[in-house]
């Protein structure tokens, strides 16, 4: 067991992947000497060389597209997109090529490409550096999407993404990069595509993922003072979604709050609300309440704290759920 930050855990996870499989390689902008703008790949070029840790030209479609070609040749490329808002030049390659390659080939080909994307707000940055575009990928079949919320998951999930035969997008909660936690580097990892109940409760369930997991936990603690016993689920996987775990929880608690930073409208919370409303219709004592961003471009840094779902916003949603 070691204590490390999420950033360090990913770094160590990448290091383990590079060590375990000579076919793995990293590609991205500024991931070499600089170690990435968040230093997540720090030291890896030094230790694995320029053929394994590739500072690419500045072109996201190029990064994803060549990664697909490398995968076709038997490699396992791990791409870094510098910020959430800069994945879009690569959207075509992800959506029409990476996701569809296996189906196109009737299962003969796979493209085990990993795409790491630091995402989310709360870092006081400028435009395009604080977005949560996960729903734009989840709708496309053929991709898997996971997001760790703690160091232990970060260390293991990146490695599991690398060994997965399917393409996996790993959304990394950038404002939690320096959140420390215990990492058991020897423990066998659980299924990265399953949700995890982090806290048990009986009156309501909060589903959150990535950067909002600590917020959800804090909200549950605060709710306890009001005498409400709230269960908290870390979704961990956005595609597929572990609906079984969520359904089971909601059939016990009868109330569900889904929280994410991404705008509510068209966000993944809608999918969860719709599916759980169907699956647990007779158990629900209130409608599923979503807590998310507003329908606007991610706002400027000086107002982002008002924008981001926080403990109060979740408590307000709980109030609404309990009002039924």
């Amino acid at each position: 067991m070691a204590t490390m930050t999420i950033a360090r855990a990913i770094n160590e996870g990448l290091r383990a992947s590079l060590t375990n499989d000579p076919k793995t390689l990293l590609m991205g902008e500024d991931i070499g000497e600089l170690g990435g703008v968040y230093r997540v790949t720090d030291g890896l070029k030094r230790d694995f060389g320029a053929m394994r840790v590739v500072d690419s030209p500045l072109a996201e479609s190029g990064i994803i597209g060549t990664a697909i070609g490398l995968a076709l040749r038997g490699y396992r490329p791990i791409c870094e997109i510098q910020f959430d808002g800069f994945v879009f030049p690569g959207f075509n390659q992800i959506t029409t090529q990476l996701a569809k390659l296996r189906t196109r080939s009737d299962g003969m080909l796979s493209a085990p490409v990993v795409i790491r994307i630091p995402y989310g707000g709360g870092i006081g940055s400028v435009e395009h550096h604080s977005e949560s575009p996960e729903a734009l990928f989840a709708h496309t079949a053929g991709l898997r999407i996971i997001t760790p919320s703690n160091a232990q998951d970060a260390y293991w999930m990146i490695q599991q993404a690398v060994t997965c035969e399917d393409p996996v997008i790993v959304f990394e909660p950038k404002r939690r990069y320096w959140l420390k936690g215990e990492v058991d580097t020897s423990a066998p990892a659980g299924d990265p595509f399953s949700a995890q109940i982090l806290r048990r409760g009986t009156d309501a369930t909060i589903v959150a993922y990535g950067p909002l997991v600590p917020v959800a936990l804090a909200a549950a603690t605060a709710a306890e003072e009001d005498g409400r016993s709230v269960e908290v689920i870390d979704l961990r996987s956005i595609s597929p979604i572990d609906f079984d775990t969520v359904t089971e929880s909601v059939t016990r608690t009868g109330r569900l709050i889904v929280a994410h930073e991404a705008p509510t409208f068209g966000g993944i919370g809608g999918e969860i609300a719709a599916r759980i409303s169907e699956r647990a219709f007779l158990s629900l004592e209130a409608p599923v309440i979503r807590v998310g961003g507003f329908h606007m471009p991610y706002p400027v840094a000086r107002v982002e704290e008002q924008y981001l779902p926080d403990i109060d916003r979740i408590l307000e949603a709980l109030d609404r759920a309990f009002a039924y």
Partner: protein
Amino acid sequence: MNSSRLPAAEFEVEEVLRAAHAAEEGSRTEPDLDMLQVLAADGTMASGLAADIAGTTVDLGPYLAQDADHLRSLYRDMFLIRRFDQESTALQRQGQLALWVPLTGQEAAQIGSGRALQPQDYAFPTYREHGVALTRGVELSQILRLFRGVTNGGWDPRERNFHLYTLVLAAQSLHAVGYAMGLQRDQLADPSLPPAASIAYFGDGASSEGDIHESMVFAASFNAPVVFFCQNNQWAISVPSSVQTRVPLAQRAEGYGFPGIRVDGNDVVAVEAVTRWALEHARSGRGPVLIEAYTYRMSAHTTADDPTKYRLSRDEQEWQPRDPLARLEAHLRSAGTADDAFFEELAAEARTMASELREAVLSMTAPELAERFATVYAEPHPLVQEELRFFEQYEAGFAEEGKHA
């Protein structure tokens, strides 16, 4: 590509293409500038070939293959693939294919470049490279599986190192570069491997897409063993290549610092020589090359297309005498290296091929939707499993019982 099953356009076809259009047409025809050629349109054959590459004259003589056997085999490939094209067009007209993408006119560009490939090379086609498929040894009927609508693929690309068709224009060009980066790494890890290259096929229209640029940037940056093979067939559906570029496309390479060559795409001998040189250039670690094969799409864009809407028959006629098959036939006949018997035998072979093709197509069965659930992911996926369960129950008629598990 648009589908053939569409109702015909309801709007009247314009009776005459406007004078304005005709005027534009005139200025559209690019000069055959600096185009490498060995086999002239009249069938005469030069004995040497040299290219001006970044100011240096490179002798391509060593890459020229001109012996009679070889020329006959090139002719054979071109002839067979044209016959394949005709048969596929017929199958489409008879409702057996949803769509067909004809290659007629581009046989030399495709057979010439395809024959230059070695087994360890890997080709990334767009969607019209049936000729390249033939040179790779892909079973041609498998190509028709895509156009019959029973698969989006059709063959195992790893068997013949011939990738699946990629319909999103230019996307495969980056895959070719990535693949070449993989070849580089393989070679480093095991120097005993035969040097190999990848080749990316794309059209004059696709050349405008950002992915083509990024693929050239990456290829140059990593000195990847890749050949960019652009078939400039003058048209992107209805848009002339002058809309995509006002200089020969081969010139793009200068901006990236690697060789670019324009070759007469209707001269199978020159195309083969140039591609051989380019592949060797790539394989030997000297980096990427761009080849522009200047050719002409003699038929419609697809069976759903109507070229009379946008090009003059005068234009089409102008290219007729430059037909890649006719000129090699003229050469073979005048050189006395092929006689009537050769051509008759070939025609017979083609007829057999065509009827076998037809049989193969008619016996292609449609898949079941249920099977499609299996190939979305490599590893188990709960949502796909759940939806498959629903679908099977629904199909089995359980659906009427009201509630799905």
